[in-house]
């Protein structure tokens, strides 16, 4: 008999999700409120716009989530976006669109693996290594571009990735969805994902039960670098230029989104669904505040309060000793 098994699984899943109900409800509430205050919120145009705005942060947060779940942190993501964007667009202008995109991805994975291998094999803290990499990558981006934005972006590239739609959704949104699904799949269904959780939960136990901790740590940062590179593809196409200092805030925003969603900053716990919640919350708040004309200063203030509040709520939900 299949039915009781399925039912049982649904019940179990719901019980597990009990932790995750606060944010979705909050998101729904804000969406409803926003619709009441500003009816334009619920127009297709605005929702598409919101989805498009979300993509870079979502993609970067997916990478950040891997680093955080493994018990680390990646502070170099924004710099990798800058370096990938500049390097990729320069290559694109010389060798074509495909090699340009390939170059961006390679730069991301390469820098990530480099940080990762230093973290893993020299047993250094991710915080300091990625902070160093932030400087290095940022400097390389400035040197390559001579400190000026590169506006010479091939038109077909900007058109396609930045603005064209397929099945009603912009390409960039599809890229965001694919990255998130891919991340979720890796975490839930692969040996790699299982080990990432194990390392974040108890690195010593992972080592002693025979997990190749250095290898998987390196791969984690390779992956977060790749996510930054994907964000670089989306951003350069959308903005139509390669900025030497692109999206400087995005690293800390990604940490905020990941934590806001409920991923444990101490590692070993968290899911892609939580990342989506966190990113949606932050992006929706700024979208709504933009529409009702809240000044940028107050927006920053509100988002700061929301993050702090979310962490407190999370703590209360999990109980004193969890």
């Amino acid at each position, binding site marked *: 008999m299949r039915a009781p098994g399925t039912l049982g699984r649904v019940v*179990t899943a719901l019980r597990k999700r009990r932790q995750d109900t606060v944010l979705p409800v909050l998101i729904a509430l804000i969406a409803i409120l926003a619709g009441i205050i500003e009816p334009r919120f619920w127009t297709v145009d605005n929702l598409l716009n919101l989805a498009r705005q979300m993509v870079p942060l979502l993609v970067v947060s997916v990478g950040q989530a891997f680093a955080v779940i493994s018990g680390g942190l990646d502070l170099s993501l924004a710099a990798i976006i800058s370096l990938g964007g500049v390097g990729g667009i320069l290559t694109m202008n010389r060798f074509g669109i495909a090699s340009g995109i390939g170059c961006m991805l390679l730069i991301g994975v390469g820098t990530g693996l480099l940080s990762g291998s230093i973290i893993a094999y020299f047993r250094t803290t991710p915080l300091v290594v990625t902070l160093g990499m932030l400087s290095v990558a940022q400097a390389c981006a400035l040197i390559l571009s001579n400190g000026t934005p590169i506006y010479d972006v091939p038109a077909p590239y900007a058109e396609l990735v930045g603005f064209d739609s397929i099945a009603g959704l912009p390409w960039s949104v599809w890229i965001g969805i694919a990255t998130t699904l891919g991340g979720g799949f890796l975490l839930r269904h692969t040996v790699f994902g*299982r080990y990432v959780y194990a390392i974040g*939960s108890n690195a*010593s136990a992972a080592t002693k*039960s*025979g997990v190749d901790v250095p290898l998987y740590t390196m791969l984690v940062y390779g992956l977060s670098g790749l996510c930054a590179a994907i964000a670089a593809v989306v951003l350069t196409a959308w903005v139509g230029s390669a900025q030497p200092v692109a999206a400087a805030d995005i690293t800390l925003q990604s940490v905020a989104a990941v934590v806001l969603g409920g991923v444990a900053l101490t590692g070993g716990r968290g899911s892609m669904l939580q990342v989506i919640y966190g990113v949606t919350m932050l992006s929706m708040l700024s979208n709504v505040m933009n529409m009702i004309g809240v000044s940028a200063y107050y927006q920053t203030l509100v988002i700061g309060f929301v993050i702090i509040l979310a962490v407190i709520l999370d703590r209360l939900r999990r109980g004193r000793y969890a």
Partner: protein
Amino acid sequence: MSLDPHTTLARANRNAALPFLEVSRLSKRFGATLALDDVGMAFFPGKIHCVLGENGAGKSTLGKIIGGIHSNDAGTITIEGHEVTLGTVNRARRLGIAVVFQELSLAPDLSVRANLLLGVEPHTHPFARLRRTWENERVLAVLKRLKVDVGPENGVGRLCVATQQLLEVAKALIRHPRMIVLDEPTAMLNDAEKHNLYAVLSTLRAEGATIALITHHLEDVETLADHVSIMRDGRVVDCFAVSGASDSKMIAEKLSGVRPVHSRDSAKQPVREAPFLRIDGLLDRAGKPAPLDVRRGEIIGLYGVVGCGAQHIVDALVGLRPASEIHVTLDGCRRVSATPAQARRAGISYLPTGRASNGIFPTRSIRENLNVSLLGHYSRGGLILRRREAAGTRFHLAASAVKYADLEDDIVHLSGGNQQKVLVARALRAGTRMLILEDPTAGIDIEAKRQIQEAIRARAADGIAVILVSSDLLETIELVDTLYTLYAGKVVSQFPSPQLRDRAAIVADVIGQQSPAGAG
């Protein structure tokens, strides 16, 4: 017999003064499991009260409630006749209660001094200056009392688990508690350290302290107990006073419901064939090479006090800290394990001591904890086959008699003993050629211990070389075919079939009393 806690308490009241602390009708629920169900118990000053029971019987939960870690759902706690609410660790501490937990709770990066005095610094205000000489005196006094030979400025993280365990006790003692609750304090200690702790507890008892001792070890009960409570499934099933060691058999029977059986298979034939595993590069006390041989189906034991060198050998075998002088030949081939991951791929599996710090993944489910070294069985091309994994997990948890509510619960929801069963199951299945087990039955009740020992023997019978490093001498003697005693990095003696041997000789070896000439 009637198990109403009030009659038991009344009976106890007759032969002693007022209890220092008394709990009555105590209940505590964790999710679906009722950890404590209407529990009553009284603890008297100047008495040692042993709380016995299987894993998951609720012993540790009771200790944690008394220590203020958990709050009770129902029932009352009275201290010297006054009802109190403990609720937080600090409140329990102010009322004179100190708890030594089963899981180590020391800060690894702080010094011994800082750890012991954590929370008892004399603070009149948060920025009060710490008086180092005064602190050192206090720390040294308590270390001396426990005969722990470490400097107060040593970092705790580098000390071995047994020493850390004693430091936990020291941490409790330094506060001069009126009541001390110890949860499995002897689990990680060897014979010498254990007797030392017994002596300290006896002195404390003579000084009038109230002592609650949560334990699985009959030896603890034999040596120390004045009162014994036996718990099962969250209830107190028996409560009585004991006098002298003659009662130990009775206690064992009451505890397990069956007579203790010696399950050692006497018909077992020693296998005579070429060694399956050979460890070269060790020396005996005369400086001559002393190779360690393990044949297929054989279990060898390494026994010694802290710093005896067993850890060094294990680290080299597992690839944690490769040692150039140690050469390992496994199944006829030279083997060098550079990392534990490499060792695992070669079928060498390791069960480290220190469940909380080296064993479990606290934020992950029982399923993931069990399978972390076994994903090869449940995956294809890096993809995990979830259904096969779940089925395998259920099968193996049942085979290891783990008490659990849901496969997907975090492992920390299990009692300590059940966590250990999961870890043993993980290690036993991952090792296809060699098993290295450190304190495999730490914190486990007698029945489960027997099961685990049988499982270990069964793995050895499959042709796997098993190396046991345990601080529990009785267990080592019962389990191993050959015992090597170690002292200061040297192999002292080899005891074939140590169960036929004199325990005193083994103990003399490991504390360095034996002359280099006499080898077993």
